[in-house]
């Protein structure tokens, strides 16, 4: 049948490569595309911020100062005592955040995803790793805004 003098071990090697590539692809699809687990992040230090409502903010959303990405949101969880959402931010090492800055949850465009914007203050002292950002603005929830608007119109 296949009387080609193709070396058998070479064939087996390439089939092995083929299978490995398939497995690597499946792992990539599982972890990187569908996010079965989170990947660890690049170098930086951690800040925390508490919000009444994080809206549609997602883990791995960018943290921006003046539109420049300076970090990532690495974790969002509920603080069981205060019932506030506690966001963990990873700020890249080369950036500092003044300790009177304000963290707000903003939206990219009309339909875009949420990101965390930091409005820097004037303090010369910066936040250190592990600090909690004191001033925060929660996400704007469209339904609440419309509700308030309608309520005020009635009066």
């Amino acid at each position, binding site marked *: 049948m296949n009387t080609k003098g193709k070396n058998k071990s070479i064939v087996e090697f390439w089939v092995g*490569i*083929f299978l490995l590539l398939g497995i690597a692809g499946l792992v990539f699809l599982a972890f990187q595309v*569908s996010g079965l687990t989170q990947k660890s992040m690049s170098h930086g230090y951690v800040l925390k911020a508490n919000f009444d409502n994080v809206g549609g903010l997602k883990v791995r*959303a960018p943290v921006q100062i003046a539109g420049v990405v300076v970090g990532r949101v690495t974790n969002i969880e509920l603080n069981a005592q205060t019932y506030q959402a506690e966001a963990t931010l990873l700020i890249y090492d080369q950036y500092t955040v003044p300790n009177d800055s304000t963290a707000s949850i903003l939206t990219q465009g009309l339909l*875009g995803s949420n990101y965390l914007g930091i409005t820097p203050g004037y303090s010369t002292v910066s936040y250190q790793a592990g600090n909690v950002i004191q001033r925060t603005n929660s996400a704007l929830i469209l339904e609440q805004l419309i509700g308030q608007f309608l309520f005020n119109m009635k009066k």
Partner: protein
Amino acid sequence: MLSMVQRIQSLGAAGIHFVERVGEAGLVLLGAIFKKPNLHKSFPLLIQQIYMVGFLSLPIIIVAGSFIGMVLALQGYNILEKFAAADELGPLVALSVARELGPVVTGLLFAGRAGSSLTAEIGLMKATDQLSSMELMAVDPLQRVVAPRFWAGFYSLPLLTIVFSMFSIFGAYAVGVDWIGLDAGSFWSNMQASVDFRIDIVNGIIKSIVFGFFTTWIAVYQGYACVPTSEGISHATTRTVVFSSLVILGLDFVLTAMMMGGW
């Protein structure tokens, strides 16, 4: 009036012929896969065929996947940008590739690249009486020739689909993030938020397994049952590509309907 009767008659004959062919194809499949194989002998044959059918199809799959991902990213970006939703490019590409384009395009390419060559190979073996000489030597050609090729295609297509999807997403990343300049974090995080492993990725792989079964079955049957002349082989090869493509597109709709229906 008579011509009317004759037409109905020929329709009936065509129907009987079709059912006969399907039954024959089923018997070929039965003989090839529902017999206890001699693992010691058939495993090297299977490896050889996975190399021929799967590994040698990798270049076309990788190139096609990358370009489809790149073009999807470019087209998607231009539309999404109008709605200021360019960050949703990741989900757009990942969902369309994992759910539909990956299995379907890989299946079509596979039918053209590997299915046709399987048909031509088996057809030529038949035309040159290799299959009947095997029978004379008490070697079952279904076991020796058809079974390894069938299993090789059945295993290779899902793997090729996974590779295709992976390279499409790399292509989209290259265009969207490296070239257009979207934020890499939004690209991945929005993708991970919208793509579900079970619903999107596993269902895409299930589709590719079904396509692999049918394309390879059609390919080996068309080769095994072809008219053993050069013209017959050429017809059989054409039929392999045409039937496989139609079966893939038709079954894709059926499977999507079943999966959307919460199956």
